[in-house]
């Protein structure tokens, strides 16, 4: 019985878009101007982490790709596409090589969040929540993942109380329709029923941009976002 549940879930996931929802919003996030230079992170004080990196580790405040693509932008439906329930699948936030992976993690309110320590050193993860309850938890090496969830939608900055350079973000949403742009800047929001939507793109140093999109039937609409970056 247990084993068949994922199968059914997969079946529904595969079939439902084809049967029910055909709309897709996709596009690309780009930048204009000069992005801030990524800086080398000096983690010499934590040799067990430093030796995991063959090349210098860079700050991830602004990560860009070819053709002015902008990574780590969360694109999501902020109006018209709320989902009452979180997915059953947990999202994972990993501390490895004294870095957070992924740098930006989006999730649904109430969705299980697993925080993994893959390092040989202790971490103390500290999400600086303002709307949700703020906490920090120590995690020695070898301990099982910390489990938590967020009740309210919020963009939460995350830091490590032991390693000052560690930095990441939780983007907690009311919708399951979200996408985080990769180094090619592209994103896709599939499986959308017909309707009017507000699409929001959030980028760490620049805040939010929104656009309104209407989906009728089985179409794919293209929505692009552009952020103006400053070198400092």
């Amino acid at each position, binding site marked *: 019985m247990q084993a068949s549940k994922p199968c059914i879930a997969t079946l529904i996931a595969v079939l439902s878009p084809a049967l029910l929802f055909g709309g897709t919003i996709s596009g690309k996030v780009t930048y204009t101007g000069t992005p801030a230079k990524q800086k080398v992170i000096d983690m010499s*004080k934590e040799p067990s982490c430093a030796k995991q990196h063959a090349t210098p580790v860079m700050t991830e405040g602004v990560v860009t790709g070819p053709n002015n693509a902008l990574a780590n932008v969360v694109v999501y439906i902020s109006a018209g596409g709320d989902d009452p329930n979180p997915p059953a699948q947990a999202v994972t936030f990993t501390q490895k090589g004294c870095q957070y992976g992924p740098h930006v993690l989006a999730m649904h309110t109430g969705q299980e969040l697993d925080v993994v320590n893959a390092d040989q050193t202790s971490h103390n993860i500290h999400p600086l929540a303002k709307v949700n309850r703020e906490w920090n938890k120590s995690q020695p090496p070898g301990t099982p993942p910390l489990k938590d969830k967020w009740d309210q939608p919020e963009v939460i900055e995350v830091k490590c109380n032991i390693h000052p350079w560690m930095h990441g973000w939780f983007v907690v949403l009311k919708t399951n329709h979200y996408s985080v742009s990769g180094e090619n800047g592209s994103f896709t929001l599939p499986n959308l029923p017909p309707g009017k939507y507000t699409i929001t793109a959030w980028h760490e140093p620049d805040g939010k941009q929104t656009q309104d999109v209407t989906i009728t039937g089985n179409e794919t609409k293209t929505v692009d976002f552009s952020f103006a970056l400053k070198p400092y």
Partner: protein
Amino acid sequence: MGGKIFAVIVIVIALLSAVPIINHTFMGANVAPPEDISTHGASIDKQLDETMLEAGLSFLAAQLVLGFFVWQFGGRKDGAIKNFPGGAKYLVIAAVLLVGLEAIALGAIGTKAWATVYFQAPGADAMPIQVQAGQFAFYFRYPGPDGKFGQLHPEKIDEGNANYFGLDPENDVAARDDVTSGELVVPVNKEIHLLMHAKDVGHSFYVRELRIQQDFVPGLDLALHFTATKVGKYEIVCTQLCGLGHYNMKAYLSVMTQDDFDKWLKTQDQ
């Protein structure tokens, strides 16, 4: 008889206790402090040796006097107590003066060692390096080619983007070429003027090979100067309990030749 046995025990304990204290000065490598790589360290080591020797001998002398009195008078059963000639008042005054003079003498002699680090100004060509202690890492800043440090703006501290000091390169030209590092890299045989401040709570800067230990006090700008005389890598540790990650608060001191240092500085981000 009981008094004599007790006196012997007192003297044996005194001799055994004094051995390691006095031997601190003479036993050499067994109890010697770690290698000294600073120009001022020798005077501090010498001062420590003298203090230990003097304290050890004083301790031994006092215990022997105690043992003598126990031997001489410990077995008496008649219960009569004789007063010290002239009363105890003058004896107490004499003891206070003696101990006080000893402490003052040690302080006066020790000031020579202390003053080389704290009272003398650094030389005019000393290299300024700033160190900021914060929970739970040290960061170091070099002024860059312009020789000027950019201003600090605590509200601009952004550790996720490597702005540990709160620089404002957008508006502050002097800050643009500042080099920040998690490692204290210095050229050998060059005087370093270390400018210290704390970002949050009290910390301490301790390098045993440099014979330097200095607290950071939030709100105070403190300074040190030293010259490292041996190429190598040494540990800098925080020796002031500063919170959860105190055990993990450390950095490394790399002493390099001038050439290696110049190369290192060029490879650093600005």
